[in-house]
């Protein structure tokens, strides 16, 4: 009985996960405490993927508080850009690290 409930729920999650990366995935590398490229333009619905090549953890934290993405050392993390506008972001641990994302309507 438990399985019958479990499987549809899992299916729904999979659909959500699929929807979350429906747009393009745009990569940003973090190397030696620099976001590269530091400035990008994406479309609404695209997902930005940061890859942390450093041996310390970083974050990508939107200045307006919209999102706060933890990017552990050696790992990648993603954030979908939900609405048009220009977002500046920084690393909370090393605030000198900054980046800018222009999100334009598709």
């Amino acid at each position: 009985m438990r399985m019958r409930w479990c499987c549809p729920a899992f299916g729904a999650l999979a659909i959500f996960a699929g929807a979350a990366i429906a747009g393009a995935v745009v990569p940003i590398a973090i190397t030696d405490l620099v976001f590269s490229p530091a400035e990008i333009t994406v479309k609404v619905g695209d997902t930005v993927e940061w890859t942390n090549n450093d041996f310390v953890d970083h974050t990508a934290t939107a200045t307006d508080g919209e999102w706060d993405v933890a990017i552990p050392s050696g790992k990648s993390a993603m954030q979908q850009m939900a609405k048009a506008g220009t977002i500046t972001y920084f690393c909370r641990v090393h605030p000198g690290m900054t980046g800018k994302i222009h999100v334009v309507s598709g």
Partner: protein
Amino acid sequence: MLHTHSNILGLAAALAFACAAGPANAGGNPTDPQIAHIAYTAGAIDIEAAKQALKISKDANVRAFADDMVRDHQAVNDKALALVKKLNVTPEDNDTSKALTKQAEAKRAELSKLSGAAFDKAYVDNEVAYHKTVDNALETTLIPSSSNGELKALLQTGLKIFEGHLQHAEHLASTSK
């Protein structure tokens, strides 16, 4: 306040000593084994300071900063240990490391008498001062004096990380009441 100043002056003097009185090579600058020891000691001191903050502080922002300091400095020191092992270098204790440790013990004793907002302010102010001093020592003495390329590169990355800590600490100091 007088204590704070005297400790910072002592710390600056200790790190200046690394430049002026390193006993080792012809130029009077510290050797790579001494630089490795000084850099490791400086990191270990900040980890101890952060652990003290995590024991005493109840402020979420201060605790988050202290968590960051433990994690980052541990990561840098782990890298440093792996590098000296790879290079077959034995870090060498020296007067600068000893002076740094002594200053840090005095500072921890001073902070242990505080609690609440008074502790938070003293800890964050000291983090600002400490990172300023260490960053300056890295930039003006330890990096230029290091002869091994990999050690120099690690110190340069360390400097970027610690400059980030300084900005973080300064932000915390400016926003905490």
